[in-house]
Each structure stands twice: as structure tokens, then as C-alpha cells.
């Protein structure tokens, strides 16, 4: 239950590229072969660990259909990370990436981490988009790139976790304003005071205070999590 940070993700991309399947594979570790059209937006969540810290991912899986495009735009602003997905067996989904990217850049906060994902890597025989092309596109637009398969689960964990790592690094670098929840990042309950103290600066007294708070909070966390077990 307790987490250090909470990151909000969105998954975007054309219809049928496997966005919901990626989410299902990541949260439930299963694959659903039947395409069940997403209506609007669906929600999923999972806890991961980065750098020894518990991080909660809240993921909003958006509908790819054009009809829902205006609805999904409302989700860009509050997200810290986005998985932009295309289907390696359908060139048109790759061609639409530019539109998606423009949309995302226009409506999101500038620090949002975007991971480009070429999904369905298990269907090598039907491949229409070369891996190199995806890599080139990602390089050109400053995205992280990965090919995944929601069916075989190849790289699925990595895609979500690497995005989180990227966000985490940005937090460490001070790029994100973690106190503004509109950025899609929330500090966990046991870190909120620590976060405030760290914002006060690296003075010796501040450091001490922070440590004291951390100890106190650890205790609180333990007693808190007891009924959970």
C-alpha cells in the first residue's frame, strides 16, 4: 500500500495496436487475444520497485479510435509518462505517430516522458515496420524506444519500468516539480514530509530534520501496514 512515489501514465496510439493488452499483461500478467474495443479510458494499477523504492503506477489506457481522440486529450496534462504504441505489422499505425506525438506535446506538460513502443514483436513474419525505423523515429524525436509483445510478454515489464526509471531520474535531477500534482507525480504518504524538508535545501539542519522525519515515518508506516496483513 505504501509507496514512495506515484506516477501517472497514459497509453496512446492507434486503435488495435495492443494498448489494452499491454496494460493487461503488465497488471494481470495475462493476454487476451480478442480485441475488446476500449470505450473512453480504462484504469489499471501496479506497484514496481526502482532503486529500492516502491513506486505505484497508475495507468490510464485510452481508446485509440478517432472518435475518442478529444476525450483522451484531457488525460495528457496530468500524466508523467506516456507509452506511444504502434503495431509493427501495420505501417499506417507507424505513420500516424507524428500526429500522436504532436497531440501529446501540445497538451501535456513538457517534461512528460514518452516511450515509443513497437508492439506485436511476436509476429515477425508479418512485420511491416523495421526495428531500425522505430529506432530512428525515436532518436529523431527524443523518445525511448522498445519493441514489445503483449502476447509473449517480451519487454512489457521493461517498457513500463524503464519509463518509470526515466521519470525517476528526472525527479532526482530536479526537472519535475513533484509538489505539483498536475505533473502526474505524487509523493507517497510516508515521503510527503521528507519531500517538503528536501525542498527547504541541503542545509545541515534540514538534513537532520529530514532524517528524523524519515525515522518517525518508518515507524508510522509499520504500524499502519499491520492491519493490511
Amino acid at each position, binding site marked *: 500500500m505504501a509507496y514512495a512515489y506515484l506516477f501517472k501514465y497514459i497509453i496512446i496510439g492507434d486503435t488495435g495496436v495492443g494498448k489494452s493488452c499491454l496494460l493487461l499483461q503488465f497488471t494481470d500478467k495475462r493476454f487476451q487475444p480478442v480485441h475488446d474495443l476500449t470505450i473512453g*479510458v480504462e484504469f489499471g*494499477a501496479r506497484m514496481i520497485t526502482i532503486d529500492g523504492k516502491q513506486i505505484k503506477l497508475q495507468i490510464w489506457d485510452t481508446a485509440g479510435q478517432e472518435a475518442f481522440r478529444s476525450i483522451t486529450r484531457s488525460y495528457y496534462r496530468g500524466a508523467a509518462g506516456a507509452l506511444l504504441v504502434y503495431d509493427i505489422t501495420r505501417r499506417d499505425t507507424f505513420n500516424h505517430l507524428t500526429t500522436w506525438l504532436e497531440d501529446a506535446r501540445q497538451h501535456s506538460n513538457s517534461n512528460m516522458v514518452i516511450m515509443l513502443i513497437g508492439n506485436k514483436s511476436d509476429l515477425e513474419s508479418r512485420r511491416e515496420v523495421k526495428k531500425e525505423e522505430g529506432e530512428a523515429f525515436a532518436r529523431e524525436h527524443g523518445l525511448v524506444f522498445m519493441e514489445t509483445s503483449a502476447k509473449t510478454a517480451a519487454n512489457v515489464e521493461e517498457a513500463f519500468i524503464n519509463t518509470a526509471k526515466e521519470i525517476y531520474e528526472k525527479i532526482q535531477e530536479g526537472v519535475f516539480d513533484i509538489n505539483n500534482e498536475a505533473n502526474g507525480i505524487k509523493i507517497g504518504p510516508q515521503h510527503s514530509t521528507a519531500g517538503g524538508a528536501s525542498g527547504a535545501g541541503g542545509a545541515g539542519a534540514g538534513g537532520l530534520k529530514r532524517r528524523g522525519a524519515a525515522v518517525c515515518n518508518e515507524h508510522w508506516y509499520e504500524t499502519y501496514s499491520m492491519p493490511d496483513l
Partner: protein
Amino acid sequence: MDFFKSGLKTVLGAPEPGHQPTGAETVERLVDRVNNSTLLEDRRDACRALKAMSRTYRVEVGALCLDTLKQVLELDRADNETINYALDTINNIMSPTQFEEEEDNPRVPMNIGEQFTEMFIKDHNNIQLILDLLDEYDFRVRLSAVQLLTSLLTNRPKDIQEIILVKPMGVSKMMDLLGDTREVIRNETLLLLIKLTKGNANIQKIVAFENAFDRLFEIVSSEGYSDGGIIVEDCLLLMLNLLKNNSSNINFFKEGSYIQKMLPMFNTPPEGAEEEGWSPQKVSNVHCMLLIVRTLVSPSNSAQIISNCQKIMKKVGLLDALCNILMSSGVPADILTETINTVGECVRGDVANQEFLGNVMAPSNPPRACIVLLLMSMVNEKQPFSLRCAVLYCFECYLYHNETSQASLVQTLLPSSTEMSTLTSGQLLCGGLFSSDVLSNWFSSVALMHALIENPIQKEQLLRVLLATNIGSSPVSLLHQCTLLLQQTTKLKAKVGLLMLLCQWTSHCAAAVSAFLRAPGGVAWLVAQTCANEHDDNEFLLQGLSAFLLAICIHFNDDSVEQYSKDSLRQLLTKRIGMEMFTSKVSEVSKHELYNKASKHPQLRAKIAADVLIDYEFCRLFKVLESVLIQSLTTTHENGTGEPAAGRTSPESGNLEQYKSLIRQQDARLQELMSQVEGLLQQNQSLQGALNDSIASNSHLKDENTLLKAQVSASKTLPGPPAPSLTSQEDPRVKEYEGKIQGLLAEVTSLKEQLRVSQEGQKTAAEELEKVKKDQDDLLELLADQDMKLNEYKMRLTSLGQPVEDEPSEPPSETITPPVSLFPSAPTAPLVNMLPPDTGAPPINMAPPVNMFPSSNMPQHVTRAPQDQLNELV
């Protein structure tokens, strides 16, 4: 009115004497001024005047100046005051409520605000215009914009929702206003969001995505939870909107640990503080919070969500807190009612939670189970109606899909537990069943019925329940008593309740069917009811229920009651009513208005006692069984009542009949096999006896045999003649073989003898070898001695000055030369060379033993002849 007039005067100047300008004229002049005036102040004044007129002359202002006002919003954004007037004017035009000023003006249609709204939103940019104004920090502008959006949403919720949904950041902007430090704006925004989220899942999701729950809980907690004001209620209403029928948001709520955050809401106040009572606002707040809990575990959600939420509620102590409210005093009745409903849904279908509820004890004296206390309220006429309904629902939830709680209820009625002096839930229900209060009858029947749902064991167990009636008369079974009551009561509710109980009881339970058929008057009453011809909705229902119960009695009949076997009942129906009439009567049940109401939701949603008639679970039973029963009745009817298994049209009843006949066949076969087993067992027994006899005689014969054998051997060792003569008589060949065997045996013996002799020979040879070896050793020793002596002498001779030559010394050592030649190194180190004889000697010394075998064979050949002769003699 005077105020407005004086206001107009200042703007328009004094009217010309003798001419009173109409409202429309004035508005026209004002619009003109807004459009054409170059001075901002003039435009502002004109807008102020329009605002003032917009309440009295809504139609005129709306019709003439909507476009002008839009223009002001676009062009005069720099002047907040003007914008504010324009917004207020539009808001007045759009207002969904009727102004005082319009009350006696017949020209203003009722839905004037809605009509103007429709006009206004035709251009989607108008909404964008107002959304943009939300960014304005000025208090008045922001507030007016929020209020205008609220009005628009009130008038045309669906349209505005769709427009805002496609405006990027539309919802986000409104969410940002929740964080406005000016409480008025925050509170107005809450009202706006409540309207905005109503019934639109997509907007609900976006609002939730924008951290709505966090913000709302922050507000709720800062306002003091349930003790807070109406703002808390608004926050809760918004949460309720976000969660209602929105599984994605419920999932988010659950994953975001918001269930835990509801807990402080239900903290019961300390004992002393209760006297103050609950403020109406607190009642509303807690009521909303309970509704939120119920939304999470509502039976209309997916089973997985319900189960997850129920488990979390138990884990974080929410269920506990709710039960505490149940057990604490001073809780207003409607909160208590809603809490009972909520507790019910929190435990419904979750075994652990149901068990938890079953174990909750009330702090009463004597301590009683919470469930018992609840049931006491249910069968108590004096309790509020809604509370009694809630208890029934809660109890149904407690029994739902839980065989243990069903069994424990029936258990309290069984004879074994009668020694308990405390009041049990079973006793309460039985009391309710036969009380004079008709609602208690109904509630108790339905509660008992829920203990039997999908539970054939309890259906049979409940048959064992006996009731002590009048003193002196023998106890009567519960089912019997129910049947009796059914015939005696004149109250519709009691009849319907009992019929539903009996239907549930007898369905899928042949034992209950036959018990019912045995009860006096039961069938006759049902038939009479079914045949009745009254025309009234409730009468139709009663007829239908009776027909339904009759159909169950036929379908699940195992023919154990002779008088009312399947066929005889069927014939009775055909004769008295006719199948067609019968089936149409059955279908009457589902045509009743209250049936449709009840079948929609597990909870009984009756506002008044008259609405209580049919139970949800009974509807389910009816839906499942209706077609099966009718099909099984009508198809049999068409085929004549004789052979039930012949030519089925419906696969279902056909299958059923098929299985039945199969079972019957198997039964017969079983009987047959049983008798066979019986016969075989007897046979087995007799055979066992015979076997024992023969074993005895066999051992007897064996003894005899040994005796005879002994005699035979005895006679053989003695004179012998009788036995050989016997064998020779039997077969001459035997003798021949015997002779051969004897010969072979003799040969074996002779060979053994030979082996022994040769072994002996070997032994002696080995001994000889040993002797020879020893001799040789002695000789070698001697030789070495001699050698030493020789050397000594040689040395002595040399010391005496006598030259020593080899030749003269040769003659004495002549005899020892062969050993020297045998061991070339011997002359130099004879003692050391004592060992070599073991390794070097054998080739020579072994020769004699090798030769010993042929030599020892010789005597064997010699001894062989006499032995053969001997053997032949034997």
C-alpha cells in the same frame, strides 16, 4: 420595480412625457449603445442596465442582445466589470428558475431558460468563450462564469457535457478551480462539477484522473468530516457521481486506497457526546457516505469489484465501524436504516464478512447477537417500515451464497437446540410467521425462504422442524402449519409470502413436495385458488402463484403420495382447469406490477407497506422454473398422460424424462442385482460348507495315506517281496526305469568315490611336496653351512700361510654343485639367496605333483570295477 425604473432613467435619460417606452424598445436602445458606443464606460453602463432588465424582460433581453453580449465577452475582456455584467445578464437569461418578477407575466414560458440555452449552445465557441473566462483570476468574473456554466448544465446537461468533453482542458480547468483559495468559488465549482459529472462516464473518469478524490477528501477532512457543513455533502455527492456505475473509477478508488480514507467519516462519537443528537447536516453527510460505500459494493457491480472492495472494507475496519454504528445508541432512524442496508451489501456473498457479521454481539443485557437484535426489529410492528425492510435485506445478504449461515439459521429451529433459553433467529422468524402482523408474516416467510435458496440440504432439514401448538395436541411440522395458515389467513401479503416460501421449499425437493401433498387441504386449496375467477391484479397474482406451486408439485413429484401422484395431479388439472388456462394463470405472476419492480434489484425498494409483496429471489426462481414447468406439463399433456418418456419435443423436459427413465431402469437393475447378490451369497455359503467338508475328508484321507505309506515302507524294509511284486505288477517299464535310475545312482556314487580318492591323492601329493620342500631347505641350509665352514677353513689356511687352491677344495663341495648351478649368485651371498628357492624352485619341484594325478587315477580305475559290480547287485 422602482429601483429598475430609476436605474433606467439614469442610463436612458428621462422618458419623453406621454410616451412610456416598452421593455423591448428600451432593450433595443441599450443594445444599440453597447454595439456602437466607443466609450468603455458607456458600454459598461449599458451592460449594467441590461443586467438590471434581464430579470423582468427576460424574453426581450434574450432575444435581442445575446449576440451583443457574446461580442462583449470577446472584445471587452480587459474590463472585468463589463464582462461581469455581461455574464450575469446571460446567466439571468439562461436561469432555469423563474424569477419573482416573472411570476405574473403570462408571456414568459416555463422553460424559457432552456430555450435560450439551446440557442446559445448552437455555437460551440460560446462554451469555449466561457471556459476561457474561467482562467480570469478576478473573483466576480470567475464566479459568474462558474454560475453560468452551472445554469447551462442544469438546462441542457447532455449537450453541454458533450461539448465540454471535446474541449481540451475543459474539465481540467474546472478541476483547477477546486483549488481556488476563495471558498465561494471552490464551493460553486463543486456544484458545477456535480452537474457536470452526472451520468457521463467519460467526464467522471477525467475528473477522477485530475485527482478529484484527493482534493475532495482534503476538503472533507478540513471541514471536519461528518460534522462539517453542506460543503462536505457536496463533496460526497460529487464522489458519488464519480463512482456510480463507473467500474473504472471504482477500481481507481479501490487502488488509490481511498476506501481507507472514508473511515474517519464513520467514527462513532464518544459516549457522552451523544446527547446533543445529530444535526440534520450530519445526517445528510453520513447518509451520503453510506451511499458511497454502497456504490462500491452494489450488487450491480462486477463480482470481482464487489469482492475486492468487501475484502478491503473488512481489512481496514470499515465494516467494523459500520457495525459499531448499528450497535450504538442515539443514531437517527434513517441513518440506522441506511447503515443496515450498507452492512448488508458489505457482507453479501463474502463468507468472511458474513461470518464477521454473524459474530457481532450487541452490548445489550443479556448480550445478544447483532443478527438476532436486527430480526427482533424486523418482526416488531412498532419499528419504522423502512428499517424493517432494511433488516430483511441485510439478513438476505447475510444468507446469500452462504450455506453455513443458512444451515445455522435452520439449526436454531431443530429439536436438538431447543434447550437454549436465549431467543434465536429461527424462533423469531417462526414467531413472525404466525404473528397477527401481516408484514411480519411476509418478512419472516421471505427470510426463511432465503435460508433455502439453492440449498437442498436445508430444505430437507427444515422439514424436520416441529411446532408445539395447542397444549395436548401433538406437534405439527412447520410445513404443515404453513399450509394450514395459508388456508386460514385472509391477508394477501401473508398468502403471497407463504406461497413464495412454499415454492422455494418444494422446488427441486421431492421430500418437501410429498410433505406438502400430505398436508390436509393443501392441494384442494391450491386448485380452488387456481380455478378462481376474480378479476383483480392481486387476485391474478394469487391465482398465478397457486398454479405455480401446483406445477412445482407435479414436476418435482416422486409419486410417493399415492393420492397425488404426478399423473393424478395432472389429470386433476386437465379436468378442472385445462392446461391452457393453467399455463396462462402461471404467467400471470410475472405480469404483476410489483413483480417487475421486485425483479430489478435484490433490495426491496418499497416506500410504503403496500408495495411489499414479491421478493427478488422469488422472481429469479420463477424466471428459471416457469418455462421448464410449463413445458413439462404441456408436452406431457399433448402426448396423453400414459407414457411420460414417449416422443419429447422439448429437449429439456425430454432430457429430464430420459434421465428419469434411466434412473428407473437403473433402479430396477439395482433391485435385480441385489437379489442376485442375495442368491449368490447363499450359494457361496453352501459352497463354503461343502468345501469345509471336503477339506476335512481330504485331511482324513491324507492321514490314511501316510499311514499306508508307512506300512508300505515298513513292509519294504522287512522281507520286501510284497512291495516289489506290487510294482512289477503295475508296469514292467517302471522296474526297468528304476533299474536305470539305480544304475545311474551307482555311477554317481562311483564317480563321487573317484573324486574323493583323487582328492586324497592330491592331498598326499601336496604333503609329499611339502616334505620335499622341507628337505630341500634343509639341504640348502646344510649347503650354506658347509660353504661357511669351507670359507672358514680357507681363511684359516690362508692365515696359517697355506696357499689355498680351488682345485683341492673342489672334491668336498662336489656334491653341492647342483645347488650352486641352480642359484648362480649363491656363492657370494648364500644367506641372502635363501629366498629365491620359493620363486625359482617351483618349476623343478612342481614336477612331481603334476605327475601325481595320472598316478592317482590309476587306482581309481582299478577300484571301479568292483563298485559297478556292487551297484548292479543292488
